[in-house]
């Protein structure tokens, strides 16, 4: 019973966190200057966006759930299972970030999900 809860946390909190962080980075704007000082300024600007803090909190939750799951199961199972977040990610990108997910991109995401299902079934 512990494992499904951990997976749910990894996927739910992880994807939610990434969507929030992605939204924050879109607010910061495209990074064009990769010098260290410029990158520090980007980090400073990012930390002033509330979405970044919401995202970091959620991602930290997902991270500790991942540690918990890894203490019980193999890496080659846990990591592919977390890829169920692909469907959640495409939906979130479409509805939360307003990105246009084309039919071709949906097809790619579906293939990825199918591959993940095979990985799960490939359990010994």
């Amino acid at each position, binding site marked *: 019973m512990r494992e499904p809860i951990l997976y749910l946390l990894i996927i739910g909190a992880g994807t939610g966190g990434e969507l929030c962080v992605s939204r924050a980075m879109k*607010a910061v704007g495209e990074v064009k200057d990769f010098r260290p000082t410029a990158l520090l300024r980007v980090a400073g600007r990012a930390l002033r966006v509330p979405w970044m803090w919401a995202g970091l909190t959620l991602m930290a939750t997902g991270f500790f759930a991942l540690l918990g799951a890894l203490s019980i199961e193999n890496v080659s199972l846990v*990591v592919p299972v977390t890829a169920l977040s692909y469907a959640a990610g495409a939906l979130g990108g479409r509805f939360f970030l307003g990105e246009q997910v084309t039919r071709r991109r949906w097809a790619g995401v579906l293939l990825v999900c199918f591959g993940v299902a095979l*990985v799960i079934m490939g359990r010994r």
Partner: protein
Amino acid sequence: MKLRHAQANRLYYKPMESSDSRMKSSASLHFKTYLLIFLMVIFGPLGNVLLGKGMKRIGAASLGTPTDAIDLLSRVLTSGTIWLGIASLMTFFAAYMLVLSWADYSYVQPASSVAYAMVALLAHFMLREVVTPLRWMGVLVICLGVLVVGQTPPRTTEPS
């Protein structure tokens, strides 16, 4: 709405002489995107595998009592392997943040899924986990999905 339409027109009906520079900037956008996704694909899986190695050594997590939790936390935080894993994941995270500042999440997320092949490889060679043929096939299908996603344009929203 009207303004947006005008902007879109300007984007699509630029005069011919600027098409060269537009191509160049699109090529550099692709290069930057691929480079950062490459870093993500190396450091993300490495981090996960190192965390897995560290947590296996620590043993199954039990949070029965507060003493258990503190004991577990102290064992996690004093493990060198875990810290290496965290450093690796932070490198991954930095690359991820940067790429998300210009590329779509729904592009980056699937594109970075080459990482699943990397995880399987690293788990097999570093942790001696058994990766069954069916699992390898799954990994291949994931990579195929990645190729399909890679053919779509990295940005569909207008820069703000």
